């Protein structure tokens, strides 16, 4: 909120009209008054207020201790009357994501929340802005509330529970489940009296989305799908009757699932298979549905190749993939990520899945992917990232800190089935132990040779072109 102010007052300097000059004067006066009232401890705020009036756009976020003072400054500026209407401000910058180290906002969000999450106590300093909850406490609570929850459609509720319990995981599966739940919800929806479908349904979808977000933070691909749906609702022709509109939306969702996810995967497989030759050794990390399809299809085509599956704790998703591949008769090698530098020298291609690909070519994927890509790059092994274009996002991210998801910290402190490994028993609650279980990481584009997407095989530098050409108004066409 604060950084908007200087940005808005930026054009002031060019053409200072009378009113604006007065606003500036008033702001300065208010700042002075505030400084007097607060006593001597406030030089910083005064300078801040003057700075904002004096058109200095560099002022970044303020520490929350100064919140009250800056509020007075803000209100005094409001009196000046040169604040642009709310609408314009929204367009300037994308809505900031919720920062979970901002206490007052977290409190507010909690009051609205349906899912009662208990927050974890010892959080790692760098990752305080991400939500982290005690795992396993919400399920019984939610189940007991099933009949009281009016606003959430049962199907959406079911999907939410499946997210919490981990029954549905993987970007595509989660996205499809969500869309299908929305489809059901739209089918059962009827517009209440004195409301319009467009508005009321959007509100409904919003409440579902926030419910799902509480169950598990949304992935970027789901965000894109939701944006698509909302856009479709907003653009519904007013002449349609309610049943027509509902049928329209349902078929739109159906089309999104089949074109952007299922067909896209088929095209990706078609492209990627051309890069597999006889005698290749392919390495993959974790379990990606696109990579699995590629491997199976190449096997069906009769190509002779070997697969190395690199896996990592705590999820060990690679074992699932391994089981399915071995069942189909592929020859596989299974290794832990610790062994990746050893196994890499015999590998000829690395195929990786991705949760999202960002505008600067950064690949946002299951934690460990960056490590595999870097080792492969060091060994001069080409790294192919397979990702459907609906997962592309215009955002830019440089590290895996500012946006990530935190998993259950207990998962890394305990080894299930190994009672003898109990070194951390009893000290997980200690004040000076902080456990960090990251879910995703960001792979810089330097380590990626190619991105295989439904628009063909492109270098990571071309992601913004695809986003620009095919994602107008943030809706994939």
């Amino acid at each position, binding site marked *: 909120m604060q950084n908007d102010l200087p940005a808005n007052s930026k054009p002031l300097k060019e053409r200072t009209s009378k009113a604006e000059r007065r606003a500036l004067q008033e702001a300065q006066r208010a700042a002075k008054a505030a400084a007097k009232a607060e006593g001597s401890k406030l030089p910083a705020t005064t300078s801040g207020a003057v700075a904002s009036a004096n058109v200095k756009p560099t002022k970044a976020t303020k520490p929350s201790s100064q919140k009250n003072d800056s509020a007075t400054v803000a209100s005094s500026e409001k009196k000046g009357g040169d604040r642009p209407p709310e609408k314009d401000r929204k367009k300037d910058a994308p809505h900031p994501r919720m920062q979970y180290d901002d206490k007052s906002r977290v409190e507010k969000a909690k009051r609205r929340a349906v899912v009662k999450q208990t927050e974890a106590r010892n959080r790692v300093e760098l990752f305080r802005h991400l939500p982290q909850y005690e795992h396993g406490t919400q399920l019984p609570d939610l189940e007991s509330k099933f009949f009281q929850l009016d606003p959430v459609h049962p199907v959406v509720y079911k999907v939410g529970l499946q997210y919490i319990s981990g029954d549905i995981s993987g970007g595509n599966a989660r996205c499809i489940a969500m869309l299908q739940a929305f489809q059901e919800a739209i089918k059962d929806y009827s517009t209440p009296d004195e409301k319009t479908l467009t508005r009321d349904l959007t509100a409904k979808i919003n409440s579902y989305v926030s419910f799902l977000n509480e169950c598990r933070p949304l992935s970027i691909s789901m965000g894109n799908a939701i944006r698509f749906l909302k856009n479709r609702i907003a653009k519904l022709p007013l002449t349609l009757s309610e049943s027509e509109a509902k049928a329209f939306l349902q078929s739109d969702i159906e089309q999104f699932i089949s074109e952007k996810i299922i067909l896209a995967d088929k095209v990706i497989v078609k492209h990627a298979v051309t890069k597999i030759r006889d005698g290749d050794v392919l390495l993959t990390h974790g379990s990606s549905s696109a990579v699995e399809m590629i491997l199976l299809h190449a096997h069906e085509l009769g190509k002779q190749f070997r697969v190395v599956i690199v896996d990592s704790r705590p999820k060990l998703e690679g074992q699932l993939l391994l089981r399915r591949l071995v069942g189909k008769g592929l020859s596989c090698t299974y290794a832990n990520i610790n062994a990746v530098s050893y196994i890499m020298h015999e590998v000829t291609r690395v195929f990786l899945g991705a949760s999202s690909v960002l505008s600067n070519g950064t690949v946002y994927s299951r934690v460990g992917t960056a490590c595999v890509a870097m080792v492969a790059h060091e060994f001069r092994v080409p790294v192919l990232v397979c990702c459907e274009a609906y997962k592309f996002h215009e955002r830019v991210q440089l590290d895996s800190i500012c946006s990530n998801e935190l998993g259950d910290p207990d998962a890394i402190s305990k080894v299930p089935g190994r009672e003898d490994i109990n070194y951390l028993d009893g000290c997980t609650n200690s004040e000076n132990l902080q456990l960090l279980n990251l879910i995703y990481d960001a792979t810089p584009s330097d380590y990626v*040779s190619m991105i295989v997407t439904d*628009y*063909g095989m*492109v*270098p990571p530098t*071309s992601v913004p072109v*695809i986003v620009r*050409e095919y994602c107008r108004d943030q809706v994939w066409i």
Partner: protein
Amino acid sequence: MWWRSASFILDHRLQEDPPNDIASSSKEPDTLSKLSPPQTHSSFMAAADPFNPIPNPKISAYYQTRAAHTAVVTSDWLAQAQAAVGHHPDDSPAPQTQLLASPSASGKSFCVINEFNNWRKQPDLAEAVAAIRALAAVIRASEATTMMELEIELKKASDSLKSWDTTSISLTAGCDLFMRYVTRTSALEYEDFNSARSRLIERAEKFGEISCKARRIIAMLSQDFIFDGCTILVHGFSRVVLEVLKTAAQNKKLFRVFCTEGRPDRTGLRFSNELAKLDVPVKLLIDSAVAYTMDEVDMVFVGADGVVESGGIINMMGTYQIALVAHSMNKPVYVAAESYKFARLYPLDQKDMAPALRPIDFGVPIPSKVEVERSARDYTPPQYLTLLFTDLGVLTPSVVSDELIQLYL
């Protein structure tokens, strides 16, 4: 990129005012006569064809033509050509090539590949342009009455052209580009068939001009990068690079050129001959002396057989190692290539391309147990290239993919 080229814009203007449209259709017979391949050539070819279509299917036809046009003709090359003539009587092309006979009532059969080969003979004509002219000839010979029929016929012709020589990237790129124009140009949708057809033919005719114009544009663009007193390393015989250096010499720039020898077809010898004619100081190097001389060099100039989607280039064998050496010594590597060489390919490494083989003469007999690497080209990844000079402007390698996405998607 097609629509940014000069002739496309001209074309576009033509469409916008209708009177011109009529004028262009009246011009049609004129265009046709200009477009038909030189008769002398074809008759000459029928008599004694030194380069028969695919004399040996294992050997890249593209590189044979290149060698014939640009290289010093060596004894081994002559022997090979002779052998080829001996093996194949001239009018029977290799069995896998599809004869594309137009279903004409007059019984005149027409073969797109022969047509292509006729055009290809001209040393100044790029392969892609020859392909497009051959396809234009298909349109002329075609008796299709709807756009769809014509499209199918063209598709067949371009497929047979592409399969005729899979090693030539610019042939594939040229065919794709033309097909793209036929299938995509919305300008063709609202016209009646005949004027659409003549527009296509006209378009193909213009393509030859673009090819020459593109070289001029590239030469102009690259002048800013050649400074007085610089030393330029050149590899292979590229018509574009020659044009660049020619223009620089005409602009009274003082520079000196190092030419690699370009084994085995010795394209460098020919290139140094051309430069000597322009009075440019030139020095010949053997291919293995590149690293030795690199610290004297200020920039490396190469052409390209094809520019691929990653922004890397496919070029004559040896380009990759020169780029590597230049990169490690922090010398810029400039590529001069026309935009019709942009191809929808994405090789991940050297072996990820269809091999293009050529004969190599070592001067002494090689024992049969010894294997010979006969590949004619290599792939240079984009991180070793500094800039690409194209008729679309001076591009960084990553822009190539952007242009391709805009064109083909």
